[in-house]
């Protein structure tokens, strides 16, 4: 399945595969904005913090697409490393772990970057595969329905969108030409990131549809939909 035409900028983009599209509008963008993005992501979200705190001491978990390691893309992953977490570079659709390995799994603000329902479904099934039976899995995705206090408000008819990330110019490589012309204002560089914005119940339905986990709790927090799921015990 490809991205709906409404969000595409040119006819050329129609022929891009989901992978290429995600590379261009997700991976490459995070590579560029990683140092700035990391500086802006330091406050843990309360639901995530509460989830992590209720786990028995000594639990081992995977944070898939771990951003800057606020809780537990190659550039982003190196930032995780410097904070002392165990990190690796991998593809969320094809995780390198043995099945039934982890006491818990979290995926914060990752699944919404996959550009087809099949790929979002695959990504969720991978989270369940690496979790142990009865392990809890916490998933957050960005909501189409934003609270009135959110600085983003989305068109309720379009779930597949590009969201700009404005990065101040000084975060980029120094550019000699900038200083040559003092009259020219320094502008932010804007990067567009691809998102699939989730509607109410959409994440719950995807999870139930896998048949691999039960929903323990779900809700809305900080303009995201979240689900805490528990992996079923299945006899192989």
């Amino acid at each position, binding site marked *: 399945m490809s991205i709906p035409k409404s969000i595409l900028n040119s006819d050329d983009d129609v022929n891009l595969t989901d*992978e290429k599209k995600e590379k261009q509008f997700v991976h490459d963008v995070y590579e560029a904005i990683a140092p700035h993005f990391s500086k802006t992501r330091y406050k843990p979200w309360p639901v995530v913090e509460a989830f992590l705190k209720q786990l*028995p*001491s*000594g639990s*081992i978990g995977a944070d898939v697409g771990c951003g800057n390691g606020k809780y537990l893309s*190659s550039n982003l*992953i*190196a930032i995780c*490393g410097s904070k002392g977490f*165990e*990190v*690796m*570079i*991998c*593809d969320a*659709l*094809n*995780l*390198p*772990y*043995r099945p039934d*390995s*982890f006491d818990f799994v979290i995926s914060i603000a990752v699944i919404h970057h996959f550009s087809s329902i099949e790929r979002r479904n695959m990504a969720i099934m991978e989270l369940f595969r690496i979790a142990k039976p009865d392990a809890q899995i916490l998933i957050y995705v960005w909501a189409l329905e934003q609270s009135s206090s959110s600085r983003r408000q989305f068109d309720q008819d379009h779930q597949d969108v590009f969201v700009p990330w404005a990065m101040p110019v000084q975060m980029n490589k120094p550019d000699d030409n900038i200083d040559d012309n003092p009259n020219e204002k320094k502008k932010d560089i804007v990067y567009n990131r691809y998102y699939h914005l989730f509607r109410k119940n959409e994440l719950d339905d995807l999870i139930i549809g896998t048949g691999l986990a039960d929903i323990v709790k779900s809700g809305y927090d900080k303009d995201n939909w979240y689900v805490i799921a528990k992996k079923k015990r299945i006899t192989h």
Partner: protein
Amino acid sequence: MRLITHNMLQCHVKGCNTNNFPLELSEIEYELQETEFNPQFLRNFVPKLEWDALVRTAMKLGITTLPDKLPDTPIQEIDEKFLKDLHRVLLETHIQQGRMTCPNCQHVYPIKDGIPNMLLNENEV
């Protein structure tokens, strides 16, 4: 990458489903970094370990402190000396540089500056 993580990794090239664990280490540089000793964590973790794989991997690095077979004693009674040796191997041994090769399909996963790169080529997924 610590050896505890290595014990959880398997090759994930498409169609590589048997004999894909453990990934074989070569050209390894590793460091020891002290970290807090938590005996209860280790006791909880021992049943999840693939013991033979851990012993073989440690041997590859010249570490011979682990017994070939897990002690028969119940987990809560495992002695402190054993747990300390295990702590050293699992949690304090950090692989900084090297390669991990799948014993089945021979795919090589590089480790650079402590971070394994587990990405596959397009034709491998």
